[in-house]
């Protein structure tokens, strides 16, 4: 390089913009930046602007500071929705992790039809949530529930179970459907993590006399932990902001008993037209999700710098 430059005298001027790595990087990042700006940053900024005004549908509002946040803080349904969201996220995440890990360990074994079963297991995750949730809605139907029919036929119940009409059962139903839908994501991702663990480590531990449980606790789990953390954090973010599953299954009912932040924001902002309140309810998710993201980034950095 030095010889070439010496031969031609001065360095050759860059005539093409994209030959400059900085510009190239900028152009390559541009589509992502535009998408993030349009679909994430702009709605987010718009949401903040709406939440500090008293805007209703079709009526531009005035600046009211934090009055809307104060209003929703004193709203009993909002508090119920906040509690529901935390409960829903916590319970589903624990079950999804436990069942997902179990499934991943099973799928990591050698058996006939492994490829087929692995593909099949993804079905709940692949089917659009709205479609699969409608199927569940029919199964939980107050009058024609196939689950009730089945339980009655085998003699477990003599009266219909009010799956979606009882507040606790309805919450149990949305949790069950979320777990059903989310387990494949955990299983497949954790399976990928399991497959990166060298069998030699297990063999060495076995030679040293470790039994299966000890090998899992002292070999598998520590090596799987980074992947597990990332999967859990992604899942927490998605579950915390869940909308479609609850909207289709219960619409937040009965009597607001299963509202999450997103469904309640939709009811208030879009259905009733109180845009500022809807935006404020949505933004209430932000501090929690922000902490989750910070935690995630710090953890990933720690793993990378090990």
């Amino acid at each position, binding site marked *: 390089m030095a010889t070439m430059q010496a031969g031609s005298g001065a360095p050759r001027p860059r005539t093409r913009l994209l030959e400059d790595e900085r510009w190239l990087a900028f152009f390559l990042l541009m589509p992502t930046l535009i998408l993030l700006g349009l679909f994430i940053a702009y709605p987010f900024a718009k949401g903040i602007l709406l939440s500090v005004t008293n805007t*209703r*549908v*079709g*009526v531009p509002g005035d600046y009211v500071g934090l009055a809307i946040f104060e*209003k929703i803080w004193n*709203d*009993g349904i909002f508090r119920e929705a906040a509690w529901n969201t935390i409960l829903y996220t916590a319970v589903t995440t624990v079950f999804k992790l436990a069942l997902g890990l179990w499934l991943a360990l099973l799928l990591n074994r050698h058996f006939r039809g492994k490829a087929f079963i692995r593909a099949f297991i993804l079905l709940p995750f692949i089917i659009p949530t709205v479609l699969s949730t409608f199927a569940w809605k029919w199964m939980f*139907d*107050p*009058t*024609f529930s196939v689950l009730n029919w089945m339980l009655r036929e085998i003699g477990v119940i003599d009266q*219909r179970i*009010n*799956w*979606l*009409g*009882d*507040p606790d059962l*309805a919450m149990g139903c949305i949790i069950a459907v979320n777990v059903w839908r989310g387990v494949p994501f955990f299983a497949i991702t954790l399976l990928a993590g399991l497959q990166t663990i060298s069998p030699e480590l297990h063999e060495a531990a076995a030679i040293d006399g470790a039994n299966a449980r000890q090998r899992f606790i002292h070999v598998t789990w520590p090596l799987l932990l980074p992947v597990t953390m990332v999967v859990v954090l992604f899942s927490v973010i998605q579950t915390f902001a869940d909308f479609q599953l609850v909207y289709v299954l*219960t*619409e*937040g*009912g*009965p*009597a*607001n*008993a299963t509202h999450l932040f997103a469904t309640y924001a*939709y*009811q*208030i*902002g*879009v*259905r*009733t*037209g*109180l*845009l500022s309140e809807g935006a404020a309810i949505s933004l209430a998710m932000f501090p929690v999700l922000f902490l989750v993201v910070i935690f995630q980034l710090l953890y990933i950095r720690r793993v990378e710098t090990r």
Partner: protein
Amino acid sequence: MLRVTRRNLLKISGTGVVAAGTGGLAGILATGIAPAYAQQKTVHWLRWNDFVPASDELLRKSLLLEAEKALGIKVNFETVNGNDLQPRITAGIQSGAGPDLIMLFNNHPHLYLASLADLSDVAEAVGKAQGGFYDISKGNCSSGGKWMAMPFGIIGAMLAYRKSWFEEVGYKTFPKTWDEYRDAGKKLKAKGRPIGQTMGHSFGDPPTFSYPYLWSFGGAEVDESGKKVVVNSKAAIDSVKFMVDFWKDAHDEGGLAWDDSSNNRAFLSGTICSTLNGASIYIASTRKPEQYQTEKGGLMKDDILHAPLPAGPAGQFGFHTFQSHVVPSYSKNQDAAKAFLTWLHTDANYEKWFTSQKGFSTGITASWEKHKMWGEDPVMTPYAVAGRLGRIPGYPGPTGPKAAEVLSKYIVTDMYAKAIQGMPAEDAVKWCENELVKVYQT
């Protein structure tokens, strides 16, 4: 190979078409007037999936084609679930684009008042031609002398009930009071035939039951001025206490999770004895009589009758789901939408839709009460006067955006639903009061 330049194309088209005396591309550009086929207006009309599918079929296959011929307006007809109409108009207004003509329920037009075109000219002409609107038409669709919505139809809400089953428990005529209705329901529930009542978040049956029920006990959300919240009263607490026992004794407890179609399915499958309903249950049973049969093998249609909601200590009330159409002010086709509405509401055209409803929707003016259709089937006759008897949410105060907000949030319905779920009656009413105060006094 023939090479056509832009200049040549303009020349050729101009020459040829000028010769034909009709314009052409050059002619069009020169005059600045679009040819007739491009001038055809299009109106995007959004309605719900009608509970009487034959009416949507009539619109799609015949009436809209006639409108296109008569007015030169193409109507793009879209139907959605009734619960999705409000989200669609909110999205339209905020984005400044969407359907040109939107159906709304009840007093919802008040929520969008600032963003709706004035339809006074259309409404006043129709009202005048058809002998004047019902009071509920005015209440739901006008504000300050301006019609922001054009009334379209009133879905009468009455109890559809199984005549033979009520007779079996000693009620030759339908119960007149809530006490009698509870007694009959209790006896029927014991036989596995409970009353079915939707008490979820759905635009139709839950509010059309819970509002008149509250009024019949003497309760109300606000006073006559429409400003003071008065729900926390002995009457309201009594109504809630009664409802809790009534629900346990006589109702299908799945009703808390029902929507507006769940009770239709339950009734038609023979699992409930009575339910508040537009006449869609009965109409479905007459359209496919062989499909819907009683447990004894008879036709279910012959065992269905209709009755108004029973009376409470303060009297007998009704609330009938109201349909209207609005033209959002963002629409660039307001004139075409208004022209279409005017055409649709001429006696001859409206009558086609009205009769296709078979009584599910009554007319918006008293003149439709006299239509010969009401004489065809005595089971449907009680619906004819629904427009005269119904009240509007906000009663006894005037309706408006606050009452519409309360309706949209299902506050009154939820007061009962919460108590049914175990909240003490006093607390449920107090909760309702707090929610109402937030709406009315902020």
